[in-house]
């Protein structure tokens, strides 16, 4: 159980897909420990670039394993603190209650735009690209793609009706704050490399007890429970 420490602030940089679950976990964490999180959200790629340039983040909650590993190599992440906190899932979603039936909805798409996150900066965008390639529709749909800066903007493109469909994070679809309707298809797990979301303690957080404590808190049953409500997959390997 959490050790009581003096109330401290923890700056957590979080990938956009995990922003709302984190806020919920933060509420619970504050009740349990009295410590407050200051949350900064953007695409994993952007947060990585910011951390590399001295951003005062104590913790990074990325949407991939690659960037935390790079930060560890660069000496910006604290060696040995990296772990998988969640495994993300991808969904195809449309506001239209009939537009999405399954893989064929992508193959048959002939009007409107398909929103994905920018594959270069957002791991969910990379997973989206892999899925489209796996389905053999990448070349065909390329002219119809719009790229969100991160997964939050991707959702926004679809939610405002500006894109007919989008490949978004399951956690966004399940988010009780969004109350999303329409139609969706859960992308089977074998369609893309797993979205292994890793956390890492960063140099500025090394002396921050609350930051270290929050890293542990992410593994607690109450945090896991919230993640489950948001549709994250189970973590297979310990």
């Amino acid at each position, binding site marked *: 159980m959490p050790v009581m420490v003096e109330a401290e602030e923890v700056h957590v940089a979080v990938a956009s897909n995990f922003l709302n679950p984190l806020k919920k976990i933060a509420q619970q964490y504050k009740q349990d420990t009295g410590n407050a999180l200051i949350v900064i959200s953007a695409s994993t*790629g952007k947060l990585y670039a910011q951390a590399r340039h001295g951003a005062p983040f104590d913790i990074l909650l990325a949407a991939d394993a690659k960037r935390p590993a790079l930060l560890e190599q660069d000496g910006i992440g604290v060696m040995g603190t990296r772990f998988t906190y969640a495994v993300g899932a991808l969904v195809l979603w449309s506001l239209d209650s009939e537009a999405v039936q399954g893989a064929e909805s992508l193959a048959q798409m002939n009007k409107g735009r398909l929103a994905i996150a920018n594959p270069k900066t957002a791991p969910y965008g990379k997973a989206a690209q892999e899925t489209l390639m796996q389905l053999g529709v990448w070349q065909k749909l390329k002219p119809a793609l719009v*790229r969100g800066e991160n997964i939050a903007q991707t959702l926004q493109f679809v939610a*405002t009706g*500006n*894109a007919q469909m989008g490949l978004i994070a399951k956690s966004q679809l399940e988010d009780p704050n969004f109350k999303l309707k329409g139609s969706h298809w859960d992308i089977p797990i074998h369609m893309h490399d797993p979205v292994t979301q890793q956390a890492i303690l960063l140099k500025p957080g090394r002396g921050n007890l609350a930051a270290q404590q929050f890293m542990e808190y992410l593994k607690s049953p109450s945090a896991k429970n919230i993640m489950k409500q948001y549709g994250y997959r189970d973590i297979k390997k310990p």
Partner: protein
Amino acid sequence: MNIPIIDLQPIWISLQLATVTVGILLVLATPVAWWLAHTQSRSRVVVEALVALPLVLPPTVLGFYLLIVLGPHGWIGGPVQALTGSSLTFSFTGLVIASILYSLPFVVQPLHGAFESIGKIPLETAQSLGATRLDAFFSVILPLARRGYLTAIVLGFAHTLGEFGVVLMVGGNIPGKTKVISIEIYDRVEVLEYAQAHILSAGLLVFSFVVLVLVYSVNRRLPVQVT
């Protein structure tokens, strides 16, 4: 070191966007500026304020409203979608509309200033000599206002090239359509491809500086002569 490959397409799109935007703005801004310079109407201040709004509003406000209005369910985007089958957001046309609003004050204000300093007399003199109003405008006012036009064209063009926030919100980052130079720089910085970002940024910096120096020096040699 690898020699970075520069994608020229975003530069080309930015240049096209700025050219089309300034062309349309000159046509739209001329009557507005003329009216502002000569009207006695009380609503003048309201129009002046409306024109100046894009100067003070964050681009996100403009981007947010455009996303709603130009989208497939918006008052403008909806009918356009019904007619053409595609919405205005995430399209070059959408970016032109956004840029017209965004760069409006940069074109209207120099023209307004020019028309004001010319006054009404040259136009009235030409008309009293038998010229039609339109004829008098083109052969008398336009040459007298060339300083104002030059400033308007250059500022409108440069400001559109520098557009970022609005394009980020309504453009959708589509290569070959809506990925303009500022977005390309942003993307490169995000993925730590600094060599490309440097080349594009330095290019834009030098271009903007040279253009401004040219405008200021030409403006000095082009005094407004009222004969």
